[in-house]
């Protein structure tokens, strides 16, 4: 079965302010999408809403994963259904060792007996997977003995997000990289990570403001967001047009 995430006529408000005004969008396993748009167009809101941040209220519309409406589920339940969000600004959790965090997280997602977080996955299986993913992403194992995002550089934070994505093996991943284009290290980590992890089992939606990341990743689909809606969808050539003409062209054409 091919997993599909569908966002249908999504209207979302934050603290009483309407941000998304009817977003329609689909991503399947095996596809790479780029969602682009100027500042304030609602890109990060879309990402947070898909994952289930409690501050983002769905006023209308639906989020559907494989035919099931998931808009009412908490983030952990969405994660267990195969959704992943790579954060633009990952949160620091002091004193929590990255390995033990990954262990709890991996266990929550992959536990075979339906009791996530209760040691359902043998440690040896976890460790083997971790070693394999570290090797694949060429991350030094000592990285995992650090505290979760504490004192991490921009590039290290992205490395940590990509490692989590690799471990959790989501079916659909949303990458909020709105400002990553400014940090060349971070940008390369994300791009290389996506290229290594991309394949028939993973669907990716990269959210970005700058088209620079698209020099390293080739999306099959490009969407342009403006004022809370997706106003253009097309192939990679759409990104090139944006590069050439800037977002002013969208504003004029919308």
């Amino acid at each position: 079965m091919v997993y599909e995430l569908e966002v249908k006529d999504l209207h979302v408000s934050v603290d009483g302010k309407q941000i998304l005004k009817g977003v329609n969008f689909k991503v399947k396993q095996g596809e790479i999408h780029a969602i682009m748009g100027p500042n304030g167009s609602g890109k990060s809101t879309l990402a947070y809403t898909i994952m289930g941040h409690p501050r983002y209220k769905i006023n209308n519309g639906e989020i559907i994963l494989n035919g099931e409406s998931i808009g009412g589920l908490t983030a952990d339940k969405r994660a267990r259904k195969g959704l992943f969000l790579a954060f633009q600004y990952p949160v620091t959790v002091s004193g929590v060792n990255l390995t033990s965090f990954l262990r709890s997280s991996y266990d929550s997602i992959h536990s075979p007996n339906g009791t996530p977080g209760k040691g359902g996955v043998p440690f040896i299986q976890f460790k083997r997977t971790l070693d394999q993913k570290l090797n694949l992403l060429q991350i030094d194992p000592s990285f995992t003995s650090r505290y979760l995002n504490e004192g991490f550089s921009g590039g290290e934070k992205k490395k940590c997000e990509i490692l989590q994505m690799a471990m959790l093996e989501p079916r659909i991943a949303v990458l909020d990289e709105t400002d990553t284009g400014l940090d060349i290290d971070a940008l390369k980590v994300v791009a290389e990570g996506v290229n290594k992890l991309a394949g028939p089992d993973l669907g990716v939606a990269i959210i970005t403001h700058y088209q620079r990341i698209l020099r390293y990743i080739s999306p099959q689909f490009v969407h342009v967001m403006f004022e809370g809606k997706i106003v253009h969808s097309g192939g990679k050539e759409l990104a090139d047009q944006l590069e050439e003409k800037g977002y002013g062209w969208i504003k004029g054409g919308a």
Partner: protein
Amino acid sequence: MTTETKELLNFDYSKYDFKDSTDNYTYKSEKGLSSQVVQDISRMKNEPEWMTRFRLKALEHFDSRPMPNWGGDLSEIDFNNIYYYMKPTDRNSQSWEDVPESIRKTFDRLGIPEAEQKFLSGVGAQYESEVVYHSLLKDLEDKGVVFLDTDSGLRKYPDIFKKYFGTVIPPNDNKFAALNSAVWSGGSFVYVPPGVHVEMPLQAYFRINAANMGQFERTLIIVDEGASVHYIEGCTAPVYSKQSIHSAVVEIIAKKSAKVRYTTIQNWSKDVYNLVTKRAYAYEDAAVEWIDANIGSKLTMKYPSVYLLGPRSRAEVISVAYAGRGRHQDAGAKAVHMAPHTYSRITSKSVSKDGGRTSYRGLLHVAKGAHHVTSHVRCDALLLDEESRTDTYPYVEINDDTATISHEATVGKIGEDQIFYLMSRGLSEVEAYNMIVMGFIEPFTKELPMTYAVEMNRLMALEMSGGVG
């Protein structure tokens, strides 16, 4: 917080509490405190006359001192409604098999024999006021290490006992030290000869098991020149509705170049007043560390202290306080620098939840002439909800200009974004809260031996998801 999480947090975990019959006690003192009760205790124990006099003198101090009014609320303590002495069995058992069945059952639940097999070099387990079980590995004995209950220490090593007992914390130090000095029973007596390193931690468990029964253990640890030891004290207690007092005194003497670490995990039930005086003397080049967790009790007032008496001596205090509903942890530390080039570091972490209250109360004192002192104090508080409370009362007295002092204090809350981040990785809301709190107290947990760290995490997880009483 979701409804589901709230339900989990309100779950009643009291079924995990301990409670045993008190029928088999061979001696129970009358309720209340008088010079007759004090003399009875001393006579029951066949103590030398100097100890009887010491106790009676302490009782005078206790009677003449007003209740301290600067810390937690002590107004509900009724000193006349407390048993000051109980003796569960007549003899001190040498091996586990000799321990009476009912008492063994309790210790089984506490996991003592298992723990012993794993890594302990000796167990002094206090059940009520008397130590009933005591073992010491042969190699420690051969090295001349003494690890006894304090009553036996007084009988078997009268000279060294008398030389140090009550010198670090004299009976007139404070009201509760006076109370303990008058009615003390049990506790540990440790002597480590010069140059001897005790590799495995020495451990003792304490419990209160009778309604309204005070527990007044007295511990004296002497670590001779160049020697080292790690002593662990873990407490669990059953739940009773009437108040109990636990008022201990712990005295440590770290001689030249000695190293001492004293670890406590305090988890008294929520009706216990835990009023403890802990103090160490650190002589030249000695190092003293207090690793101190306060999870339970109704009110804890405890400020482990190090008096840095010799040049280059060092003090480290790492503490965690957790206050759930109806609990007040008034805890902290004292570093008193009396000699040059001395160093102290105090790290305090507190967590308040469900209206619980934590207070950090610390003293940093640098005496005149104690030049080139370095001291770092850091206290971080975490508030898990709006109704909980935390306060900081730092007292700083610097009488020498060459001191290098730093003090940092933070108060934090768990942010919605932190929870969302962890939940987006599959953790439930409760697990996310747990993980953040565990991370917060990690500077403490990482100092514990492995099995204790596991126990501590389990205890905190239980507390976070409803409280154990």
